[in-house]
Every structure is written in C-alpha cells, then in structure tokens.
C-alpha cells in the first residue's frame, strides 16, 4: 500500500512522573506551611483559613510564606525551605 508521511507537531515532554505525598490522617501536632501566591485576596483567604484551622487542630507550628510574583513559580530555594520545615502545605489563588 502506498502511504503518505504525516507529522506530530507537539514535541517530546521530558518529564518523569512524581508520586503525591501520602495524605495526613490527622492534622494535630503537624507543622502547617502556607504559601501566599500574592494575588489580590490570597492573604485574606489564607489568613482566615489559618486562624480557623489552627483553632481546630492545634498545629505545632504555622509558617507563612509568600511567592515573589503570583505569575511565577515559587523559587526553588523557597520550595526547599517549605519542604524542610513543614508537614503539610496549603495554598490558594484568590483573585
């Protein structure tokens, strides 16, 4: 059979899958990290949630972080710091 050549224009994605962290069974005594993406209302939403959650669960520590810009990925050093010092992390967009 005569054939025609066709092309895939998408290019290869060079990435390996990452496993999700196991879900925490209880929040009591954990270190909560909060990542504010610096959008308009993110700080209001996140601080409100922080206060409610802290009252309910009794965290060992609550650490608040801010991204440099809402449209940029968090800096690798910031991600490392969050990962090293927290058990769970909460973030939100809140435009």
């Amino acid at each position, binding site marked *: *059979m*005569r*054939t*025609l*050549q*066709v*092309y*895939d*224009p*998408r*290019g*290869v*994605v*060079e*990435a390996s899958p990452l496993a999700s962290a196991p879900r925490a069974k209880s929040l009591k005594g954990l270190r909560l990290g909060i990542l504010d993406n*610096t959008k*308009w209302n993110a700080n209001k939403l996140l601080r409100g949630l922080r206060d409610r959650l802290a009252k309910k669960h009794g965290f060992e520590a609550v650490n608040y972080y801010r991204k440099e*810009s*809402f*449209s*940029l*990925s968090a800096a690798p050093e910031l991600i490392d710091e969050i990962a090293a010092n927290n058990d769970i992390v909460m973030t939100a967009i809140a*435009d």
Partner: protein
Amino acid sequence: MAQDAVLKVPPEAAASQVPEGTDLIEWYYERGYSDGLPLVPPTPEKVKAMLTALGGEPARRVARVPPRWGSLTREVLAINTVMAGCRPEYAPVVEAAMLALCAPPFNLNGVQATTHMASPLLVVNGPVRREIGMNAGHNVFGSGNRANATIGRALRLMLLNVGGGWPGLLDKSTLGHPGKYTYCIAENEESSPLAPYHVEKGYKPEDSTIFVLAAEPPHSVTNHFANDPEGILDSICSAMSTICNNNAVSAGHCAVVLGMEHAATIAKHGWKRHDIRHYLWAHSGNRWGDLYGNGRYGKVYNRNLPVWYKREPDARTPIVPSADNIHLFVAGGEAGRFSAFIPGWGHMSTPVLRAVSGAAPSAGGPQCVDGTCYL
C-alpha cells in the same frame, strides 16, 4: 483537543505513515493540532527546506515551551512553521521569536496560562522585513500579507502544540483576543521620520531584530485636528489613561504605534523618540481614587504596582513605571491620522528584543538616536 492528547508524551519520531488518499487537512484537524484554521500539510520536502533554512540540525533543541514544557527541536519548529504556511526564508525570524518568547524574563508560562487576554505581539525591525516581504504599511495589523500572517501563526501553533496552551486546558484566558491567531507586524522604517526602534535600543540599522511583548489588542487613537506634537500625544495619553487596561492595574510595559501622518507632524517640530516617550509618560495616568471606586470597596493597596506610587485619592498613578517602559514604533500606511496604544499584560512579563542572528547590540561608544548621541 482532549486533555490526554495534550499531556501524552508523543513518540520520539515525529513522522509516521498514513494510507495514500487520506484527507490530510482533516487528519490534522482530527488530532487537534490546528489553531482552528486549516493547516498546510507538511511534506518531507517542505520540512527539509525549512530545516535547511534554519541551518539543519533537526534534533537541536531550540527551547522548552511552557506550560506543557514540550521540547521544541528544530524539526518540530520546522513542522509547525510549514503547517502555518510560512516560506523557508521566514524560518530564522520564527526561530528567533521562539527563543525570545522562551527567555525567562518573558514568563511565557504565565502569559500562556493567565486569565487575562494577552497574546505575544511580535514586531520585526531591520533589513529582514524587506527581504521576506513583510507589510509595515497600510493595514499593518490586519490581513493580506503572507509573512506577517504566517509568522505570527507559526508562533501560535507552537504555543498550542508544543506549549500545550489549549483554551480551557492550559490556556485559561477568559476572553482571548483576535491576535491569538496571529499578531505580527514590521516597523515602517523606510517612511518613518524617527530612528528605528532597534537603533534606539543600541542595535545598528543593518541588524535585523525581533521584539516581543505580551499584549492586549491595539486601541485606535483618532486625531484629525492637531498640528503639533502635544495635541496628537494628548490623544494617545487619553487612550492610555483608562482605569481598566492591564497596565493601569499591573504596571509593566506597553507599546505605542504612531501612524505615519502623526509621526510626520510630531517629527516636523523636532521631537525625538525620547521626547515622545517622556511626554506620553508624564501626561498619562489615572487618579488613584478612580482606580478603585473612590473608596467604595475599602482601602486598596494593590501590590502589583511599584511601592513608590503614592496611594492617595488624588495622586497620579502612572500607566507604566517609566518612559522606558513605553515601546514606541512607527507603522502603517501613508494616509490617515491614526495611531494605536497597545497595553501590555503587566509587571509579570518583561518584553524581549533579540537580533535574528542572536548577536548582541553594538557595545561601547555613545548611543546615537535620530542624529543625537548620548554620552
């Protein structure tokens, strides 16, 4: 385009075979590789010609295109560029533009994914415009020229196919704008009374450059009555001074395109590029109170604007933080007293200027613009 098709990793080989007689336009539509318009089916001969124009090396990686982070090799670039309808001589401009779009300061990841309508605007300067037959004259933002139309379209196809910027999937733009099909112009250097844009930025007139800005659509500025720079520029300042373009709320960079008649009138009075840009910066802007409903919704700080903006009801809020953030071009046909203001996306993206050859601007010595040298 289904999500699995976007995120699936394609096989290493970009080429495969289908039975002769297959309707290739429909074949490409069915796979979701199109911007919505029919694609030019790439043939081995056309892809090879495009690769030759790029200097060969099909496996060489030009960039990784976000947010999908697909690997844009020269072969993949050639395939998309053929699909867009480009001639091989456009290929170096397309490659330079993709390098500029994928430079970190441009933040293409954000430009692609934002809910805002921004799309990359490409402006070409230097001899390459003439060599490949670009339109810098009448209807410069409109239809009718193969190079303008297909170079802009090639960029969009790569943002879709390689970058995965499919509407609703990784491109979350609420409205988009027509420039998401193609948004590519050339500066009208031959008829402009001002130095070309790239010369103002330190390149030589004989250098060919591309400039990219994440941009809203052009806003027309009509002024048929003024016979001096101030009158014309006040009209442009009025177009710039709205409370809801994205510069007003997120600062960043913008572009102004002077039509030929406006440029001629302004230049006749001896005004240079920096005079025009500084006038536009000094006399545009909004009253702070007007930006946020005059206190109706409480006190607003807006962290997207520079810390040094005065946040008081009657303070002037600049459209962009400095006259250097206004990128000035001269383009269009010889008749008509029109210009255009093009708002940018905001501080989240920095425009990029790049020589098609990749060479840096001339280093050392005074910078000369319009016959004036700055020491």
